[in-house]
């Protein structure tokens, strides 16, 4: 198991490095000279050059990359050009917001989707299964802003049950915050349910069709015991991986939902940074999102190796 994790860690480190390069290059492709943008088109060249020098944007690319990366490790993520604030000050609250929403959605969708997937598998090809599978999938592929709008219209406008903006007033209790976050979280639940339940269903069906399940049934065990003791622990492994891959999306990809619900999360921050050609903010926030994703997949690998005896005890007799 140690080997497995070490390999995974190594690969993640390489990917992280490549990611940072990619982000840096990508962000730098945004057209426009940094200082020029700040000072405007009317400023004279000398001032522009001076500012460029001050900001360090006239140095060679490799040096700029190094400055950025080493700054990153020291907690200095650069200064936002649009807001003139340290980037960390901007990312901090945005990240918190995204995490809250993600956690809320997560807590709702994961148990629901797993139960849905298992039930669909156990009722394979019957009506319950079709409803869960096709229904889940249809809801999942609808773009999140369509789902969000539908929910806003139904619950926010016509039924007036939940607030349309996700911003609770400062200092609200957890419960109040949850009330405000409910609609966007529900949108996410609808979007993710179909996908997660489908993987769980596939994993459960594979376990149900396996020889070892046949052995268990032929031992004379009641069906419920067979499912509980023999099937479930083998069916959930793929689900873990899938859930991990959704974290990147949950933390940084919710641009649309954050726009709809006026919620200051990472997605919106990145969008603002891209629009404003705010390179330091853009690069650092995208990298943060990537890091969250890599950490999540790494954790999923750890969980997988702990739960899969073939990896945990890799040595044979």
């Amino acid at each position: 198991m140690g080997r497995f994790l070490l390999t995974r860690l190594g690969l993640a480190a390489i990917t992280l490095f490549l990611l940072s390069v990619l982000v840096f290059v990508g962000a730098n492709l945004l057209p426009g000279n940094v200082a020029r943008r700040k000072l405007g088109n009317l400023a004279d060249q000398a001032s522009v050059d001076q500012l460029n020098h001050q900001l360090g944007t006239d140095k060679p690319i490799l040096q700029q990359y190094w400055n950025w990366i080493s700054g990153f490790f020291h907690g200095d993520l650069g200064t936002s050009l649009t807001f003139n604030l340290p980037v960390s000050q901007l990312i901090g609250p945005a990240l918190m917001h995204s995490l809250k929403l993600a956690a809320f959605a997560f807590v709702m969708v994961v148990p629901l989707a797993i139960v849905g997937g298992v039930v669909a598998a156990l009722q394979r090809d019957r009506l319950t299964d079709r409803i869960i599978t096709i229904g889940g999938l249809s809801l999942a592929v609808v773009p999140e802003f369509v789902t969000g709008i539908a929910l806003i219209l139904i619950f926010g406008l016509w039924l007036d049950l939940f607030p349309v903006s996700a911003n609770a007033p400062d200092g609200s209790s957890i419960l109040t915050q949850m009330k405000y976050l409910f609609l966007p979280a529900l949108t996410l639940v609808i979007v993710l349910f179909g996908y997660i339940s489908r993987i769980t269903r596939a994993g459960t069906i594979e376990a149900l069709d396996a020889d070892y399940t046949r052995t268990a049934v032929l031992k004379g065990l009641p069906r419920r015991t067979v499912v509980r003791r023999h099937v479930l622990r083998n069916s959930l492994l793929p689900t873990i991986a899938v859930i991990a891959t959704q974290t990147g999306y949950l933390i940084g990809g919710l641009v649309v939902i954050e726009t709809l619900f006026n919620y200051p999360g990472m997605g919106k921050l990145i969008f603002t940074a891209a629009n404003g050609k705010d390179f330091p903010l853009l690069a650092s926030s995208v990298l943060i999102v990537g890091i969250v994703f890599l950490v999540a997949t790494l954790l999923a690998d750890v969980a997988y190796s702990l739960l899969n005896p073939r990896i945990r005890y890799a040595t044979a007799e």
Partner: protein
Amino acid sequence: MTTLEDPTAPIAIPIRPDETKVERYERFRLLFRSPTFLLGFFLAGIWVICAIFGNLITPHDPVAPDILSKFEAPSGQHLFGTDKLGQDVLARVIVGARSVLVVAPLATILGTVLGTTIGLITGYYRGFVDEATMRVVDAVLAIPLIITALVAITAVGPSRTTLVLVIGFVFTPIIAKTVRAAVLGESRLEYVQAARLRNEHGPYVMFAEILPNVTGPIIVEFTVRLGYAIFTVATLAFLGFAADPTVPDWGQDISAHYPSINGGYWWPVLFPSLAIATLIVGINLIADAVAQLFER
């Protein structure tokens, strides 16, 4: 009847050609009988017709502002009501299909072609090329697709061409990953080893031997990604990156009228949303039906 006298004569062989031909027709017949497929085909088909015939079937001119009739609720005259400029929402919805259905399929084709090539190469050659490419793919996939597309579009500015290119490139890594997995599975089979033993060149083995056997997963992947492409185009338009702001566009219309919801004007937002939803659901139902077809 068996020939026993001459041991060197070829043995009469009942092959099963009829069975396979029947099998193939059976597959297609099953497809057309599958309710999933039919529903999907119907839903997607409506929008394809709208995209093709566009202006010819609209009841009103979609781009004729008429301030006096702005924000009229759905009625006999305007089935979907009018928007803030007095334009007929139904007409805009019909014509709006065009921009989506031009960009999305092209982008998906681009992504599929690139992704398949990369998948074939990495899956067949393995080794360093494979490892290096997969690390890069993993790095790209660590960022949510929509963010990557967003940043790229911001950099190059939206247009039909740039949207096709950006979305195509953004989809390439994930398609490459799927194709690579299928190719890895095929490479283990002995006919690939047999080809190598004949000293066949790499490109021959990849394209003439392996590719015909992975078309199934590729087609499935294509239909799934098509749905995502439509989704991405609409989302980008919603965020302000429509291909052509002068032409009716679902995402753009939604974003333009979203603030008006507070005033109770729900129809300019709902109908384009439903359009997006039904088109994507239709495509995905087709994708599901096709996937089931290849599973058997």
